[in-house]
């Protein structure tokens, strides 16, 4: 396909230096592309589910962190600090190997989703907390005066404006989670990276396989950014009308 010369080795024959050449060969794609499509599809499913559930967990915890009972606030604080200061890989191992050794047998996919949701939830909590704290008290007093009930106040006066403020941070965290989902390949959830590991052990074309997968991940992150931008347009009608960010 395309050829490039790499490191020049010390010459063994007298007349010319030996050149290590390596030919990139992507011909395995003709046969293996369905596996990559299936892997990418599972990555999308895994991450869409974990992002949605993680967002719900994080939003609830964010509300608790700001308005909750002091004891609950402490508890959420513990959860956030523990998750944010340990690697996702170890969290995945604890859920998959740890829980199964305690008698709770879960499939790799379910374990992956649980670990990703727990992880996503902690990061979302911190981001949403910052957003919720930025909503001034007077906003809620005004909502009271307008006769909104508690649920309406939380959704329309607290959560949506809070989310609008932290939306860029939130979406980049979502994209990071999509990329981090590659780590679930380590417990053999058959997503994109695990597919790559499988194909490369079949074809011995490791470098080419991971180049293909890197390109697919790049495309996925572009796709996710586009999707979150579109969701933002729908969610934040006020911003769409006025064209300015909330101050």
């Amino acid at each position, binding site marked *: 396909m395309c050829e490039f010369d*790499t*490191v020049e*080795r010390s010459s063994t024959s007298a007349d010319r230096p030996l050149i*290590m050449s*390596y030919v990139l060969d992507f011909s395995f794609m003709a046969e293996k592309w369905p596996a990559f499509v299936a892997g990418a599809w599972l990555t999308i499913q895994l991450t869409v589910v974990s992002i949605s559930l993680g967002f719900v967990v994080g939003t609830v915890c964010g509300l608790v962190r700001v308005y909750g009972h002091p004891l609950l606030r402490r508890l959420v604080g513990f959860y956030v*600090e*523990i998750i*944010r*200061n*340990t*690697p*996702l*890989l*170890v*969290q995945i*191992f*604890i859920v998959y*190997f*740890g*829980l*199964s*050794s*305690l008698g709770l047998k879960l499939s790799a996919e379910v374990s992956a989703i649980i670990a990703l949701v727990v992880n996503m939830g902690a990061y979302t909590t911190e981001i949403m907390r910052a957003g919720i704290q930025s909503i001034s008290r007077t906003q809620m007093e005004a909502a009271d005066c307008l006769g909104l009930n508690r649920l309406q106040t939380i959704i329309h006066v607290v959560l949506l404006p809070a989310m609008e403020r932290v939306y860029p941070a939130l979406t980049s965290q979502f*994209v990071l989670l999509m*990329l*981090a989902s*590659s*780590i679930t*390949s*380590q417990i053999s959830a058959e997503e994109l*990276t695990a597919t*790559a590991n499988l194909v*490369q052990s079949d074809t011995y074309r*490791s*470098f080419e396989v*991971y*180049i293909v*997968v*890197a390109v697919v*991940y*790049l495309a996925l*992150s*572009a796709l996710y950014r586009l999707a979150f931008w579109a969701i933002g347009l729908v969610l934040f009608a006020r911003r769409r009308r006025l064209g300015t960010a909330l101050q």
Partner: protein
Amino acid sequence: MNHLGPNQLIYLVLAAQWTIVLSLIAFAGGAVLGLGLALARVSKIAALRLLASGYIQVIQGTPLLIVLFLSYFGLGIMGYKLVPLVAAGLSLTLYAGAFLGEIWRGCIEAVSKTQWEASDCLGLNRFQQYAYVILPQAVRLAIPPTVGFMVQIVKNTSLASVIGFVELSRAGQIVNNSTFEPFVVFSCVAAIYFALCYPLSLAARALERKSHAAK
């Protein structure tokens, strides 16, 4: 069958040293690369700006795990021996460089424009402007987010276990293979990571509060 005892715990703690070494390599390499990228991102030359932002987009859009595999197998293709420490150090450097470059670009751009103008008026050249006026101010802004990012580096060294580098996570897997107590073993591993990362998180938060108070 072994049980998790003092020997296994000592083994984990010793392996944690390699986590620290790898973090330091990644941070040092990433700092050099990141500074170059940050300066390229604010350069007057359009090609440099494009190149740097392209690099950052690509690294931030691919999982570190894939970068790790690419550098591991890529080094192999180029005819070097496969040393996990080198491959892990290289990929973490590439990764940390991209993120630090982006963080530091923000800090350089946050230094007010009047500082550039004033140093222009004083007849400083571009190098002097950076060395004596802009960077010293940018560094003060950069310290809290940089310390915060170090937590990410420490956590991400766990991925080096995948290519067989024996650091804390890999050591956890090894201990688990002989004791079959994954819940306890990986909880211990997590606790050691927490002990490494939490002080950094606290420091980042304290520094941030301090720099907010200074404003």
